[in-house]
């Protein structure tokens, strides 16, 4: 067993030595893999950050409840009290029909025309700001349904279209990342399998001789698997370094922008487990690509 481990280490060292002997080719390959892996990772970071930002925007969702016209002040007060008691409600504020009319006169510019109306056409309304816990559209919709059932409430309106649209855009972006990741993972696979293909063909004679003296396919495959896996892993490390640099670069302007909106927001980069994840994906793709490539070409090389 220790001889086996020693053998693996030998192959590992000789693979690294191979890279050191051809530094330029190695840098090019690792660089291409690094950039290819960095692209989807960067998009992932942007979307995670955007989700982080919008999760603080629950305050933007507000519910307007319109009361029946025959609801008097006393009953309005009772309803507001019940609404305030609801555990999903943060604030509730009454806007009387008179206040609404006044505001509408000021904002609409129809002041004179409205004076000619015999009655005030606007209903009394209650503006409800949901509690911070109720963030998701489903939760908000449930709250609206519950509030609508209260006595005296005629209709309800949820003002959160903008947030909802943004959420949809984000989920679209997430899906784009998935598709893009798959494509770029394929690209990495092709890059690595091509370098491995060249390596296999370049060592054709050696492979033939090793087969002649009793080398198993597994033995012949091993250095190529190491080489491919290492390329993927080094590429992933390059990608992580790139991402860290980019996040550093963007954080200055982002902080300034956040300050303008009175926010202490900072870009969140890759966490340690995420970095390990990128490395695992890089190494895994390298292994798969070299396995596939060596398998294809090894069968073609037979001693004669």
């Amino acid at each position, binding site marked *: 067993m220790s*001889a086996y481990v*020693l053998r693996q280490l030998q192959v590992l060292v000789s693979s690294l030595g191979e890279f050191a002997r051809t530094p330029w080719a190695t840098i090019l390959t690792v660089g291409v893999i690094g950039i290819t892996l960095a692209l989807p990772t960067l998009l992932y970071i942007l979307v995670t950050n955007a989700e982080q930002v919008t999760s603080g925007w629950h305050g933007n969702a507000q519910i307007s409840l319109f009361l029946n016209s025959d609801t008097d002040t006393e009953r309005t007060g009772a309803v507001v009290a019940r609404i305030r008691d609801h555990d999903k409600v943060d604030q509730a504020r009454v806007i009387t029909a008179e206040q609404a009319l006044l505001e509408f006169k000021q904002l609409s510019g129809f002041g004179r025309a409205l004076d000619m109306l015999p009655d005030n056409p606007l209903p009394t309304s209650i503006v409800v700001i949901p509690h911070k816990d109720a963030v998701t559209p489903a939760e908000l919709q449930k709250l609206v349904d519950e509030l609508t059932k209260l006595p005296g409430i005629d209709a309800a309106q949820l003002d959160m279209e903008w947030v909802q649209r943004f959420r949809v855009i984000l989920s679209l972006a997430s899906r784009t990342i998935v598709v893009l990741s798959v494509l770029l993972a394929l690209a990495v696979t092709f890059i690595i399998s091509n370098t491995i293909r060249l390596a296999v063909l370049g060592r054709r*004679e050696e492979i*033939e*001789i090793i087969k*002649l*003296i*009793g*080398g198993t396919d597994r033995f012949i495959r091993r250095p190529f698997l190491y080489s491919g896996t290492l390329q993927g892993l080094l590429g992933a490390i390059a990608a992580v370094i790139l991402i860290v640099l980019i996040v550093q670069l963007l954080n200055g302007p982002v902080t300034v922008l956040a300050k303008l909106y009175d926010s202490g927001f900072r870009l969140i980069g890759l966490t340690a487990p995420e970095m390990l994840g990128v490395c695992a994906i890089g190494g895994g793709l390298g292994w798969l690509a070299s396995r596939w490539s060596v398998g294809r070409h090894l069968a073609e090389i037979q001693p004669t």
Partner: protein
Amino acid sequence: MIHFSQVTKRYANGYEALKRVSFTIERGEMAFLTGHSGAGKSTLLKLITLIERSTRGQIIVNNKNLAKLRRSRIPHLRREIGVVFQDHKLLDDRTVFDNVALPLVVAGLGHQDTSRRVRAALDKVGLLGKEKLYPITLSGGEQQRVGIARAVANRPSLLLADEPTGNLDAELSNEIIGLFQHFNQHGVTVLVATHERRHIHRLNKRVLELKNGELIHGGDPQR
């Protein structure tokens, strides 16, 4: 050790390289395989190491029926057989030591055992002290001896040689044949393919002669 029974090899283009060849080589025996070039000598050796598979007939090597040997077991068969090639088939970018060590590394031998056996093999062929050199810096005879050291490094029970003296002068080729004789005296079964009749007359060993793919001398009686 080697048993051929009615073996025929036909290549994909229809050419019949061997026709109903039957012979037996006992364990510990040394034999020459002779015949003109194109008579089927190389094909016969390739069948023994499963570089080619026979079209018909039965081949048994070291108690293994080759027709029933799975592809994944071929490397293990080859480890029991040392092969010396006419063109040496050495790796030019590796030292003499690494070339001779290759079959041992392939077989998964530990570092110390490998080192010991490589030195022993190089000692037998008279090249101890040249293990750090690259094959390209050696003479033709020395390169062939590196090839022989590699073939015997893993202590095979069977040694095959395909025209091992092909490119060497008389004195060097006598030396090479002498080495095979030496290994045979230590219990290794040896089969040497050569078209040089000189060695055959000199050594008085068993001779198998091929002509146009047919074994005309030294084979088993036809059944």
